[in-house]
């Protein structure tokens, strides 16, 4: 089985990463009750004998050895110390060691140029060394998952620098980026600059990007909070959907040992679950596996159109044990609804280029087929890919739920999100506001801005032009004729 490495960069990236490792451990604790170190757990964790300094891997062997002590296959990068050192002090600190960390003290000051050009060059060797170390522990490295935000300086700047580095050093290893986009009313004034500058790197150097919008996460969290029974003890509220099963929501799972839930934990859990569900089919058994390399193969029709809109359902599950098929069908319907997307977009009214349905748990092939047949009439698919469905079945259900669905859609609606960012960018750029902060950084040039804008424009145009073909009559190219 293959392994993946998580590269978490910046404050946002590390917070999501922290939730990811916590939930990953929780998932394996449920699936792997014997505490055996097997292939599956090996895809994200190393098994080491922690009595040694700089412990080496305990060989996997037959996949029947006991877990001694798990180390995450991760690289943690931040240009300030706060988040990472708190992580190390917390209960999760054990799964990392200090050689996996790279921190500075002064931060990137919400400036992409500081992160990408200055720190990127300054720490080039160390970054490459940290990644190399993690990579050497893998016997078949399949994928890097880079997690960072787009609005700040470190995540967007250093994160995309690492992406470049990964492409140079490991051209055959897939690069999936989970990028958190700022909301329109983001408090970082330069976030449009950072986003657009970082987008050029994502477009050119990532295999696949899962854009996530903060506002969408907030809305989903609110939706769940409303449905969940109140957690305060003593008070029982009657009549308010009492049927929701506790601990089944996608946002569940506070950091182990910390009594207080941090404000972003719920949102970050959503993203962490996304990564777990995305990789589940590659890590566990199922009758129709989806390996990670199949995701790009099936969902990316043209090299630069690799932005996928994700949605996860159900958000929580009901407490009664019986699962009526209607509820299962609801899971599929919700996956296409506007309010379940991890971006503020509406894919249903735009054009699908391709769509993956990754199902976990107690669901049969015929359930998927029935739902595809049911939903398809209401969805628009591009004319050359009218059956653009990729389906996967993983038999291991997520923690707390009998089944779940992750949809990944390559949909033209994403051009709206990108256009918003571009408009915010141009608003600042027209006035040359804050530009000097960037241009004074070594190696930063005005052309970086114009090129990035151009790159973004071309991505927008690619998606937009395809959307315009929606509903238009199609001229088919005639098939080859055999001369008789």
């Amino acid at each position, binding site marked *: 089985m293959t392994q993946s490495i998580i590269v978490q960069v910046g404050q946002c990236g590390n917070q999501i990463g922290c939730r990811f490792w916590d939930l990953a451990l929780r998932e394996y604790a449920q699936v792997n009750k014997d505490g055996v170190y097997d292939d599956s757990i090996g895809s994200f964790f190393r098994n080491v004998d922690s009595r040694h300094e700089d412990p080496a891997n305990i060989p996997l062997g037959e996949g029947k050895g006991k877990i001694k002590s798990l180390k995450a296959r991760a690289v943690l990068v931040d240009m300030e110390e706060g988040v990472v050192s708190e992580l190390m002090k917390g209960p999760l600190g054990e799964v990392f060691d200090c050689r996996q960390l790279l921190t500075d003290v002064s931060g990137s000051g919400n400036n992409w140029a500081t992160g990408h050009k200055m720190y990127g060059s300054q720490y080039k060797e160390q970054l490459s060394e940290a990644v190399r170390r993690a990579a050497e522990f893998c016997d078949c490295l399949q994928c890097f998952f880079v997690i960072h935000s787009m609005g700040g300086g470190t995540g967007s700047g250093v994160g995309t620098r690492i992406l470049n580095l990964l492409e140079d050093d490991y051209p055959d290893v897939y690069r999936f980026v989970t990028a958190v986009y700022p909301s329109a009313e983001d408090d970082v004034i330069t976030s449009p600059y950072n986003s657009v500058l970082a987008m050029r790197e994502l477009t050119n150097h990532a295999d696949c990007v899962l854009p996530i919008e903060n506002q969408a996460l907030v809305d989903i969290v609110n939706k769940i909070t409303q449905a969940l029974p109140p957690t305060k003890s003593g008070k029982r509220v009657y009549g308010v959907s009492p049927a929701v099963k506790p601990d089944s929501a996608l946002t569940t799972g506070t950091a182990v040992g910390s009594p207080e839930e941090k404000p972003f934990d719920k949102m970050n859990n959503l993203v962490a679950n996304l990564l777990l569900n995305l990789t589940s089919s590659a890590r566990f058994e199922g009758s129709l596996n989806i390996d990670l390399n199949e995701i790009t193969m099936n*969902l990316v029709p043209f090299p630069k159109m690799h932005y996928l809109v994700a949605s996860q359902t159900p958000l929580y599950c009901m407490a009664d044990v019986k699962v009526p098929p209607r509820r299962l069908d609801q899971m599929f319907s919700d996956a296409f609804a506007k309010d379940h997307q991890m971006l503020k977009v509406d894919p249903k009214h735009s054009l699908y280029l*391709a769509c993956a349905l990754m199902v976990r748990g107690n669901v049969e092939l015929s359930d998927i087929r029935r739902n595809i047949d049911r939903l398809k009439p209401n969805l628009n698919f591009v004319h*050359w890919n009218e059956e653009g469905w990729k389906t996967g079945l993983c038999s291991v259900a997520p923690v707390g739920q009998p089944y779940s669905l992750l949809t990944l859609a390559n949909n033209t609606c994403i051009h709206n999100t990108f256009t918003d960012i571009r408009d915010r960018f141009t608003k600042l750029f027209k006035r040359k506001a804050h530009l000097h902060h960037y241009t004074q950084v070594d190696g930063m040039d005005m052309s970086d801005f114009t090129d990035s804008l151009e790159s973004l424009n071309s991505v927008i145009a690619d998606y937009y032009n395809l959307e315009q073909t929606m509903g238009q009559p199609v001229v088919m190219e005639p098939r080859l004729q055999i001369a008789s």
Partner: protein
Amino acid sequence: MSVITLQLGQCGNQVGEQTFSTLIDDVYSKSIGVSSQDNHDYIQTCLSTFFSQPESKSRDGSFDLPKARAVLVDMETKAVAQSLQQARKSGKWSYCPEQWYSQKRGSGNNWAYGYCVHGPRSQDDIMNLVRREVEKCDRLGGFINFLSLAGGTGSGVGAFVTQSLRDEYPFSFIVNQVVWPYSTGEVIVQNYNAVLTLSHLYDTADAILVMENDSLHKICSQLLNIKNISFRDINKVIAHKMTSVLQPSLAADLGTKHTCDLGYIVERLTPHPQHKLLTVKNIPQMSDIAKEFSTYQWPGLLKNLRQMLIADSPMEEGINWEVKPATRTESGHTCFNRSISTLLVLRGKETLSLDASMFSDPNIYAPWVPQDLASCVFRQPRWFCGYEKAATLVGNSSASVKPLNKIIDKAWNMFASRAYVHQYLKHGLTEEDFLDSFVSLEKVIDSYTKL
């Protein structure tokens, strides 16, 4: 005579494993309807063809389980491991412990990655395994390769391995059993993969046995009454069809010995290199519960089966009886499913004396086919898989044109906008390779439609 099986990719491994267990289940079936001597011959023929039996007794005096003459190939570990485990769990047969090859990283639905990268890299190892298996055979009857068209490993590595087999064993018979993907949704690039695979197999394999998921799904839901159909159910139907053809039987011109002669099947069914696509129709097929309460008469079964062939119906329900084997229309097209050759396998009661002349009617065959070569009949009085009477028809006919046309349509449409092509070029395929494949399949369609 022994037949070696190659299981390629996830689907190939699942179907292969299922086929072996169906073979074994049939062998040890309780309702046989023949003398124990005849049954013994049947069992021995099946076991020696598809399994190798250890000669010496093991220490506790019992014989070891029969070991499948198979090579398992996949580019990731899960499917192979599962097949090995399933076989072990059955307690009736097993795979040879060393006869499998797997890698860590799958082909990712990318035909080019399978064919251009994994194939050449694994060639030596796989061919070594095949050679080891061949050396165990007294007489090699040929190869059966199980693979699907949609994925990357089965299709890409499968096409490559088939070619290597052809190079290494130029005079052996190679039959590829391909699983045709659902017309909607499993793998998005399935039409590209299918076009590339079929065009390559057409050059290397002797015959291509087509199993369409869409038809199999219908069989599961309408004949077998399965509510939530899983891949396991579908694979069982494939295995049932394969087994009903492959189990020992008696051919009129092959002497009086019950055999499974792959070469004979290939020779009779694919007389022309442009016509290699075979379909398998069988009757009756029902759930185990229904079996006990059903009786069938041979004339009815054969009449249904013949109409299934003419009307190209995948099963006995909903056959279109309007279709008649008529002469050509003025435009030169035929409106029924015209065949080149058929093989009828009759199993069960009264089969030895059964009249099957309705399948040698010259009207259902292409005019250039010599009448005495058009159809042949295999007979086996032993019951099959608990069925008192069972008939199977393997046909080389224009039936495959319709699904093939659909696949080419979609692939060509996608190719016109060059979507996904970059993923293939990345691994060394060129746009010309695509065009060549399209051309060769258009030729296949052309020659089948001209029947």
